[in-house]
């Protein structure tokens, strides 16, 4: 199915996601200065930056959760700039929120069903088929199925949040700091799965504070600082480069 989609978008020569002069403001504070980005099918975009750089604002604006001040967002050529968040999910933009989005009083099963029901009917398969795929990626969730999701560990909850996002059958998956607050082992496990999904051709935008272990094929890195783009290249920045970008020339090693 993904091949067919690739052919379709190839024929029309449209990027999957086109972001044009997008800016976000909270009150008088500019969170993100006019920002441009094109996301191709199967591509991987890593958005790095320190706290307050505008990374989360970018993702939340794309998902419809932050107010867009100016600019526009096109998904497969359709303008979705003012579309409410819940509709964007059906159109193919799924967000894995920062802090993992724990929903107390919901079991793991409830979370997965919500994720599955958020997918467009045409793109999703039966619940059991989709679940089999999810449990292949995250076997632990099968064991936790009946537990309230407030009893999960941070790593398990992150896996559940990613599973929810995947079940929406997105064209683009947005991940907001998936490694935040996770133990190194849990981070490695999460990124194993993300690398696998990328290899399978899922387009993703991943926001992180520090460089993460991702394959560099199809990778674009954008570094944001105070809402402005400081770096944009089709590779991973080196540690020295990042230090310079985050801290300025004077403090670089």
């Amino acid at each position, binding site marked *: 199915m993904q091949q067919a989609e690739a052919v379709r978008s190839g024929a029309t020569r449209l990027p999957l996601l086109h972001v044009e002069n997008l800016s976000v403001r909270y009150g008088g504070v500019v969170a993100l200065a006019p920002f441009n980005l094109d996301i191709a099918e199967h591509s991987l975009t890593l958005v790095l930056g320190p706290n307050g750089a505008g990374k989360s604002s970018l993702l939340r604006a794309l998902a419809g959760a932050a107010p867009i001040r100016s600019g526009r967002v096109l998904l497969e050529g359709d303008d979705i700039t003012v579309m409410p968040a819940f509709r964007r999910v059906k159109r193919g933009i799924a967000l894995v929120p920062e802090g993992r989005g724990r929903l107390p009083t919901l079991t793991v099963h409830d979370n997965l069903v919500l994720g599955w029901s958020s997918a467009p009917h045409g793109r999703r398969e039966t619940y059991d088929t989709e679940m089999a795929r999810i449990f292949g990626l995250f076997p632990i969730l099968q064991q936790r199925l009946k537990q*309230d999701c407030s009893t999960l560990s941070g790593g398990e909850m992150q896996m559940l949040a990613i599973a929810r996002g995947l079940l929406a059958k997105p064209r683009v998956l947005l991940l907001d700091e998936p490694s935040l607050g996770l133990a190194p082992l849990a981070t490695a496990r999460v990124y194993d799965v993300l690398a696998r999904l990328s290899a399978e051709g899922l387009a993703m935008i991943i926001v992180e504070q520090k460089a993460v272990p991702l394959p560099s094929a199809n990778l674009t890195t954008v570094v944001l600082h105070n809402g402005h783009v400081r770096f944009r290249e089709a590779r991973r920045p080196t540690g020295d480069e990042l230090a310079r970008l985050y801290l300025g020339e004077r403090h670089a090693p």
Partner: protein
Amino acid sequence: MRELRLSAMEVATLLVIAAIVVWAALFGSRLALYDLTIIALYATVVTSLNLLLGLAGQASFAQTTFMAIGGYGLAVMAKTYGVNPWLAIALSLLLSVGLALLIGKPLLRLRGHYLSMGTVALALGTASFANASSFTNGGWGIGGVPALTIGGFSFRNSVAFLVLAWALCAASLLVYRLLGDSHIGRAWRALSTRQDISASLGIDVPRYKLIALVIAAMMASLAGSLYVAYTRFVGPDLYDISQVINLMFMLFVGGLRSTVGPIIGAAFVILVPQAVSGFEHYQNLVFFGLLLLVILLRPAGAFGRVRGQRALESILPSWLLRWR
């Protein structure tokens, strides 16, 4: 769904309640029949609140408004205009749904304390309107509301009304359970804690909130109508702000999100003041003392499984905690 599954304790409680109702229907005194009928009707309203606040997380204090529409709707239409009481109840129900739809969109945009204040204002407005309007006969209220009848059979008979009231209560509990376990309930529980994340899960948050408000309004309206059909009288005191507080007591004594909790809570708030009426002037003091004790000993209510009890536990002396 763990929180909504009936525990063995809840099943046992439901059976005991059913046995008490059957016993009262067969051998009960008039007072027992009266109390049990009123408990069933209040438990229905509290269930509507449980659905709004427990499942959907919307702290609405305006359930008395919909009770009032149900009650006054029946009284005014049936007594003043001679409409068939059943039709009057149905029309009041439609009126409640209409009002819920009308005020729901703007009201439910408010969150947290603002929603509470907005709905308290609505509840206060309802009581003032009932008190002031000639339409509702002001502070006098409307008496002699026509009794419910089917063919030649009259619900003036207390046992028949007991069955009717408990049928409504059972239906509302069933609706609560079925919806709670359905996709709608899942969406409610999701949006009750995080609206942004719910939206990112494809949930149309304003729409699901409105559904909760409308269903809760229907329950409250029907219970409000039956209350007036039973006592044959409606007055503004039934809907004043102390009633709003009583409904909250009932909900929290029974336990938020518990299915049988509303019945226990309603029974407590209705029966305990009667039981302590011997204290005369100190009756309220004793009742609220007991209420405080219940809240201290079971912060989550009789059947509640609410987390975050620590805030209350932290103010208790440790010797009291050991008693539990």
